[in-house]
C-alpha cells in the first residue's frame, strides 16, 4: 500500500563539523542515522525521527540540529497537516491512533491565567531565609470529633496519614511502561525527599521493596502484581479508577514490553499483552467501590490510607463527593492534560476536563457538603512548575502529583513516542541497552534537585504572601486572581479577576 506519510522533522547535519564518529547512529534506537562507507558520509532517514534529541545532545561536535519539517501541504485552515496525516495513517493501518504523554493541543491552561498575590505595607512579607517556612503536609482522613481519656488527655484518634515534606509526589508510572532504572530513580528520590512515588499498575519489583515506606502501590482494573506482600510493604494503596489522559478506558502494555522481570512483577506470562479492562469488573457503582476500599483496609489492618484516583470528567464534583463517602482517605484527580505511556489519540485529545476547573469544583462541592476536612485532595494532570503547585494548593488541593515533570528531570525530551518502547533516554523502554543509558545514581539526584528547587520557590512565593505554612495556603483563593477569564470561568475557579 502506498505510504503518504511526511516526516515530522528534518535532520540538519553540518558536514564541516561532522567527524563521522557514528555516535548518532549508535544512540538512535529509531535507526535514523547510518553511515555510507563508500562515500564517507552520514545519512539520515528522517521519516523515522521522533525528535527525541538524543543525537543532538550526544554529538561531540554539535554538528546536528533537528528542525521541524518545512514541507507542507497546500495551506488549509480547516485541514491541518496533522489531520491529513492522521487520515493517511489510518487509511494505511485501519487502526486506532496511539499517542504518548499529555495532549500537545492548544487547550486552555488555566494555571497560566491565574496570578498570585504578595504582601505590601498592611502586612509583612516573610523572608524564608530568615524565618521558618513550612511545607510539610499530612494526607489522610480526619475524624469529626476529638476524643479524650479519663484524665482529659487527647487521644490520637487520627487514621493513618501520609507525611510529606513538600506537597509533591511522583505519580503512577508502572514498571513496564517505564524502565527499572527510572523506577529506581523515583523510589530513591522519594525516600531521600520524604515524599512518595507510585508503582502504577505494574506491580513492584522485589528489589524495590526496601523503598516501601515511601511507596504508594496501585490496584488497578487488571490487578497486575497485587498480592498480600505488595500491599503490606507500601505506605498507602491507590485504587486506580481512571487516568486523565484516557478517562473511561483501560490500559494495554504490549507483549514486547513484558520481559522476564516485568512478567514477575506483574504476575503474568512473559510476552503476553497486559490488558487492563476499562472498568474494574467488581466496581460498577459507588457501593462496590466502598467494598474494595474496605477490603484493602481489612487486608492491611487499617494501617494504610487508601487513595482513589479518578480522571477529571464532567461530573467530577459529584463523583468526588461519592468517593469521599466511600471510606477513601485521599482522592486523587488527574486532569485532561495529564500524561500517559500510551493512549488512543482521540481519547487523550478529546475526553475529560482541565484539572484547574475540576479541582475548584470538587473543593467547593466538598466544602458545601461540609466534608472537605474529611479527605485529602491530590491533583495531577500537568503540574509543570512550583507556581502550578502553589496555584493548585490555593485553589484547594492538599498536594500534587507530578509525572511528566519528573520524567523530564530524568532526561525525557517529550518526543511523545513512549508507546513505541524505544525511548532513547532509557525511560519508557525495557531494552537493556537503552535502559542502561539512564543511570539511577544520577537520575535520583536530578529528581531530588528538582523537588528541592521547587520547594525553595514555593517558600519564596509563600513568604511573599506573608504565609509561613503551606497549610494556610490550602483553599486560600483570595491569594489568586484571574487574567483574561470570563465571568463563568472565574465563578467556577472561585477567584476574582485581577484588579478586583
Amino acid at each position: 500500500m502506498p505510504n503518504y506519510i511526511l516526516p515530522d522533522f528534518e535532520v540538519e547535519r553540518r558536514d564541516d563539523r561532522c567527524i563521522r564518529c557514528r555516535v548518532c547512529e549508535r544512540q538512535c534506537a529509531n535507526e535514523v542515522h547510518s553511515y555510507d562507507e563508500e562515500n564517507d558520509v552520514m545519512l539520515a532517514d528522517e521519516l523515522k525521527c521522533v525528535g527525541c534529541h538524543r543525537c543532538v545532545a550526544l554529538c561531540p561536535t554539535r554538528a546536528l540540529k533537528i528542525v521541524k519539517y518545512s514541507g507542507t501541504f497546500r495551506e488549509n485552515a480547516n485541514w491541518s497537516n496533522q489531520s491529513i496525516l492522521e487520515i493517511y495513517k489510518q487509511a494505511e493501518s485501519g487502526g486506532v491512533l496511539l499517542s504518548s504523554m499529555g495532549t500537545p493541543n492548544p487547550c486552555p491552561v488555566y494555571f497560566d491565567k491565574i496570578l498570585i498575590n504578595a504582601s505590601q505595607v498592611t502586612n509583612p512579607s516573610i523572608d524564608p531565609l530568615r524565618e521558618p517556612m513550612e511545607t510539610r503536609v499530612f494526607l489522610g482522613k480526619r475524624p469529626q470529633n476529638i476524643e479524650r481519656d479519663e484524665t482529659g488527655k487527647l487521644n490520637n484518634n487520627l487514621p493513618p496519614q501520609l507525611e510529606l515534606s513538600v506537597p509533591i509526589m511522583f505519580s503512577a508510572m508502572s514498571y513496564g511502561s517505564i524502565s527499572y532504572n527510572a523506577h529506581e530513580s523515583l523510589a530513591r528520590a522519594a525516600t531521600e525527599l520524604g515524599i512518595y512515588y507510585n508503582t502504577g499498575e505494574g506491580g513492584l519489583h522485589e528489589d524495590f521493596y526496601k523503598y516501601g515506606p515511601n511507596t504508594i502501590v496501585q490496584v488497578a482494573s487488571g490487578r497486575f502484581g497485587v498480592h498480600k506482600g505488595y500491599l503490606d510493604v507500601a505506605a498507602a494503596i491507590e485504587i486506580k479508577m481512571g487516568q486523565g489522559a484516557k478517562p473511561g478506558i483501560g490500559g494495554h502494555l504490549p507483549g514486547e514490553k513484558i520481559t522476564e522481570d516485568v512478567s514477575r512483577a506483574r504476575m503474568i506470562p512473559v510476552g503476553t499483552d497486559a490488558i487492563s479492562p476499562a472498568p474494574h469488573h467488581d466496581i460498577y457503582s459507588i457501593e462496590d467501590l466502598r467494598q474494595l476500599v474496605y477490603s484493602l483496609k481489612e487486608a492491611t489492618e487499617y494501617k494504610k490510607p487508601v487513595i482513589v484516583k479518578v480522571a477529571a470528567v464532567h461530573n467530577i464534583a459529584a463523583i468526588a463527593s461519592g468517593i469521599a463517602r466511600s471510606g477513601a482517605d485521599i482522592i486523587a484527580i488527574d486532569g485532561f492534560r495529564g500524561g500517559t505511556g500510551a493512549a488512543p489519540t482521540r481519547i487523550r485529545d478529546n475526553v475529560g476536563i482541565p484539572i484547574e476547573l475540576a479541582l475548584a469544583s470538587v473543593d467547593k462541592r466538598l466544602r458545601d457538603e461540609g466534608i472537605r476536612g474529611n479527605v485529602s485532595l491530590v491533583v495531577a494532570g500537568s503540574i509543570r512548575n512550583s507556581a502550578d503547585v502553589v496555584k493548585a494548593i490555593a485553589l484547594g488541593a492538599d498536594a500534587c502529583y507530578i509525572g511528566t515533570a519528573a520524567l523530564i528531570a530524568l532526561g525525557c525530551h517529550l518526543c511523545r513516542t513512549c508507546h513505541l518502547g524505544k525511548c532513547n533516554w532509557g525511560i519508557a523502554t525495557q531494552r537493556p541497552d537503552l535502559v542502561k543509558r539512564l543511570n539511577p545514581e544520577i537520575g535520583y539526584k536530578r529528581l531530588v534537585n528538582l523537588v528541592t528547587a521547587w520547594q525553595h520557590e514555593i517558600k519564596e512565593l509563600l513568604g511573599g504572601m506573608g504565609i509561613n505554612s503551606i497549610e494556610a495556603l490550602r483553599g486560600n483563593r483570595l491569594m489568586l486572581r484571574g487574567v483574561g477569564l470570563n465571568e463563568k470561568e472565574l465563578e467556577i475557579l472561585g477567584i476574582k479577576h485581577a484588579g478586583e
Partner: protein
Amino acid sequence: MKLVEGRVRIPSGCAISGIISRDRRKFTGERIVESMKVMRERSNGLGGGFAAYGIYPKYKDSYALHIFYNDSNAKRECEAFLNEHFEIDEASELPTRKIPEITDEPLIWRYFALPRPSRLAASQLDEREYTARCVFAINARIDGAYVFSSGKNMGVFKAVGYPEDVGRFYMLDEYEGYMFIGHGRYPTNTPGWWGGAHPFSLLDFAVVHNGEISSYDANRRFIEMFGYRCALMTDTEVITYILDYLIRHVGLTLEESASVIAAPFWSSIAKKPPEERERLTYLRTMFPSLLVTGPFSIIFCFEGGMMALNDRLKLRSMVTAEKGDMVYVASEECAIRAVEPDAENLRYPSGGEPVIVTLNGGKDNA
C-alpha cells in the same frame, strides 16, 4: 458608593487593650477608655469599640442583644423575628450621649431576651446554639438589622470614631464590670458602617484583634463548612468563629485552641518532650486549615476570663502586666501605665504563647 464591610475586605492596623479583675471586682468603663486614649496614634477615627463584662447583673440570665438598625422598617422586621423566637424582658434604646465627634448613628437598641421554650425544644439545639443561629439569621437575612452583641451579662459598644469618643458616646463611665476590652481601628479604606467596627462578638465571646492575617480565605472557607457565615470579611470575625468552633463545638481547651491557631513550628515541636510533641502534632494534623498566619495580636474574652495571643512570629506588639488581682493586656505599655502607673510583671509574651487569665474561683475554660 461607600465601601461596606462584607462587600470588600478592608485591612486595618489597630490598637487593643484589655483589663480584668480576677476577683470580679467591679470598676467603671472609664479605665478602658483612658487606656485606649493614649494609643490614639494607632487608630484613625474610622472605628472604635469596647466589650464590657458583668455590666447587666439585673438581667444576668438573659441574652443581652445589642442591635443596629438602619431604619424603622428593619427594626419592625427584626422585632417580629425576635418576638417569634424569644421572650423579651425589656426592650429599649441603648443609652447614648450626643457628642459632635460621633455622627450618623443608626438606631441602636438593646433587648434582654431568652429563647421561647417551645421554639427551643422544637429546634433540638442547646440554648446557646439556638441563640447563635438566631443571630446569624438576623444578620444574614434581615436587611438593615445587625446584632453586634449577644452574650449574657455583657455588652459590646462600637461605632465609627476614635475609641475615646466612642466610649463617651456610649457613656461607658456609667457601666461597671469586671472585665473590659477596647479597640481602635486604622482601616485602609473608609468603612461607612458601624457594624464593621470591633470588638466582634458572638454569645459571650468577644474578640479584639490587631493585624492582617494572610490565611484569611483558607480559614474562612474551612470554618464556613460548619454553618458560620463570614459576612463581614474581617479577620476578627473569622478568628471569633474559629475559637467558637474549637471551644464550643470541638471541645478544645483555650490552650489547645491556641496551639491550633498559632501552632508552634514543626521544628519547635520536634524539640518538645514526647507527650507534648504528640499532642501538638495531633492538633496540627487534625486542624491544619485553622492555622492562622500573618501578623495578629488578639484578646479573646469569655464570661470567665480572657486569652491574649500573638501570631507565631510575633509580628504585632503586645504587652501584659499585673497589679494585685488586676491583669492588663495592650498593644503598648503606655496603655497600661496610663491606668496603672505601678503595673508589675511586665511581659512581652512570645509568638504563639497564649496568656490565659481566668477569674479566681471560676472555671478554667471558656
